[in-house]
């Protein structure tokens, strides 16, 4: 059993414990799908090969559909849970692109996408089993539908990766490289998360210390109104 599977199994009851939690999680999936769509569209524009461009476009189209499916279900669950209207679930699905194709180059990009798809398959399978056991047919069938596409994505990216690499060994090296790179990125993200907390506390202290300045500013720089000549 891989670490991914073990983690997913362990966290299942927590992640899916309520409609609100489930809505959150599925909304997160929608964002991830949307982000991957952006990366694939970019890859389609930048790859020198029309064949691969076509493959990336088809893939991007699937991810757009997935984003919509996840988003729709997330909103259904949010409605059931009575989530506040200000919640992120209600906002349009909008993710950032990491411009991975530019950053990694096409070979590593393919390896990266393949690794991501393979991991998604592992996770989704665990979720499907859990949903079935819980009698949540609707969520199980949503993931089962999407899994069909994810299998196709994992397969074609692997095939393209081995085709594009100079040798089989080079393809495997690319796979190892992006796994290492991802682990490093996760580590950096955790670091940043922590640093952001520290920064917030530090800044609030600065803010408190600056409080007297507030009075000074009000006196030295009063608000203007009406016309001001240039």
């Amino acid at each position: 059993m891989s670490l991914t599977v073990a983690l997913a199994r362990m966290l299942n009851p927590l992640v899916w414990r309520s409609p609100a939690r489930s809505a959150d999680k599925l909304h997160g999936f929608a964002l991830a799908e949307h982000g991957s769509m952006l990366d694939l569209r970019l890859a389609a524009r930048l790859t020198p090969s029309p064949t691969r461009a076509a493959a990336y476009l088809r893939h991007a189209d699937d991810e757009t559909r997935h984003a919509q499916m996840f988003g729709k279900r997330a909103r259904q669950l949010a409605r059931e849970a009575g989530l506040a209207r200000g919640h992120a679930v209600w906002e349009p699905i909008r993710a950032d692109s990491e411009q991975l194709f530019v950053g990694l180059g096409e070979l590593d990009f393919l390896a990266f996408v393949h690794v991501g798809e393979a991991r998604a398959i592992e996770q989704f399978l665990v979720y499907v089993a859990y949903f079935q056991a819980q009698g949540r047919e609707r969520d199980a069938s949503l993931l089962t539908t999407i899994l069909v596409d994810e299998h196709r994505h994992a397969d074609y990216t692997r095939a393209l990766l081995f085709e594009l690499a100079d040798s089989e060994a080079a393809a495997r090296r690319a796979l190892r490289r992006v796994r290492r790179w991802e682990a490093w990125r996760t580590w950096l993200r955790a670091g940043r998360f922590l640093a952001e907390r520290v920064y917030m506390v530090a800044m609030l202290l600065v803010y408190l210390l600056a409080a007297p300045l507030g009075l000074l500013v009000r006196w030295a720089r009063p608000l203007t109104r009406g016309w001001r000549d240039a």
Partner: protein
Amino acid sequence: MAKVLGISAHYHDAAAALLVDGELVVAIQQERLSRIKNDPGLPLDAADACLAYAGVRGEALDAVVFYERPFDKLERVMVNLMRNLPRTWRQFPRAMASQLGDKIWVLDQLAEAFGQPRANVRCFAHHQCHAASAHFVSRFEDSAVLVVDGVGEHSSTTLWHGQGAQLRALCSIEFPHSLGLLYAALTAWLGFAVNEGEYKVMGLAAWGRPGHAGLRERFERLIRLHDDGSYELGLDYFAHMSDAELGFGPKLEALLGPRRPPGLAWALEGERDQHYADVAATLQQVIEDALLGLARKAKALTGSPNLCLAGGVALNSLANARLAREGGFEAVFVQPAAGDAGGALGAAILAALELGDPRPTPMLSAALGLPVDIERAWAVARELELPVRRVDDPASAAAELIAADKIVAHVRGRFEWGPRALGQRSILASAAARETRERINRLIKQREPFRPFAPAVLEPRIGEYFDGQANDMTPFMTTVLPARADRSDALGAVTHEDGSSRVQTVSPAGAPELHELLVALERGGHAPLVLNTSLNGPGEPIVASSEDALGFFLRHAVDAMMIEDLVIERPA
């Protein structure tokens, strides 16, 4: 004789524009390449694409120019944070991180990115760039320039006098008083995304009753218009000093009612949504009245017969039409990228003028982006197993499809500068039938029911369908005209609730491919008129490349797509 790259970024809608020897060669919004709507990030992709298009190396540039003074902006942000202690405690850490972590280093980043000595990287004030982006590409020798947006460094409204290659600052209104921020606050209150939903507010306004049930009096607490053309916000009702996201405070909800939940389906027959429409209509009226006051002041100070407008508020085509009618000027001009993207253009022009280049020739076309690669489009379409074929006469082929009531994605020429699709990256269809509008909405746009679609008409034929003449704004869809009631047969899909149309007049200089198409329609015995809406899915930037176009075709059920001389028809 200089090569100058202008850059706008970091607030919303980043862009790059390249001037060579004083002429605008290429201008691109970052969102078209990054595919992130209104992408505010430093537009290095857009800048690189500009340089590549013009065949200019980064090191060969004579200047790189930013559209804002980073340290003036920092000062305003800091002063505001301090002044509004302790309400700003939430905003403080984030604002500091974004200012100090990124924004104030932008000039150094630009120097590094383009291999330029730091001395060649300069900046001008935000509103000066806006004003330059309007006057200098207008056809006017002399013009009053009115800039109205959310806020630049300090100013939110400024007046200028443009004379030939000179631009002189006259006076300003300063943050936190701001028409743009008033509009933004009400946009958020109506449940739309700020910096994106403003068009929806304008569309909604047509369904409301301005001033209904004492709304105008209630609005007087939000904004007071003075006789000298200036205005003042009732700051207690707003929160833009302490909350960058929302912009309005609890007092505003007490005054106008609770905010509308975002994403809720609209039912304009119902009383509740009618109230929201009434507020939108009142806001529109107040904004127009405020702009008329500012225009009067501009006229008094300059005596100029012409008016140029810029800044985000200048994208309000309804208000622009009223200014053209009642503002007392002979002509009014609004550049297609009147929002912050346009700042890149203004910055580049200001630097080019300082380097001794002449003023650019008037802007006649918004087709300033990149063309598509036809061979690539052909190859990828074949790989996608789409039924692609080449035609000798693409304009006639497109006209035939439209005459047969097909919805056609039209990808021809260089993509547009600014938020409007003007025929280069458009969805085109017959303008006559109301059903077409419903079909486009159902299949592609999923727009709110109150949002109109716009027509494009052959310029000399405009009087046959609309009450009014072609003017400096109609080629860029920055104004509206009333549709002729006796021609409703031809305009069923493109007339708004209030009888207006955001019409585009099409000439060979402005949009040559669309012009050919309309001529072909007329030759075939049809009205030289089409419904024209932007080629994008909901929430997406407008299509740029051939890959974007093909991706759109996969996802959205348009009947056909033209990519230059390639036609792809969806099998019935």
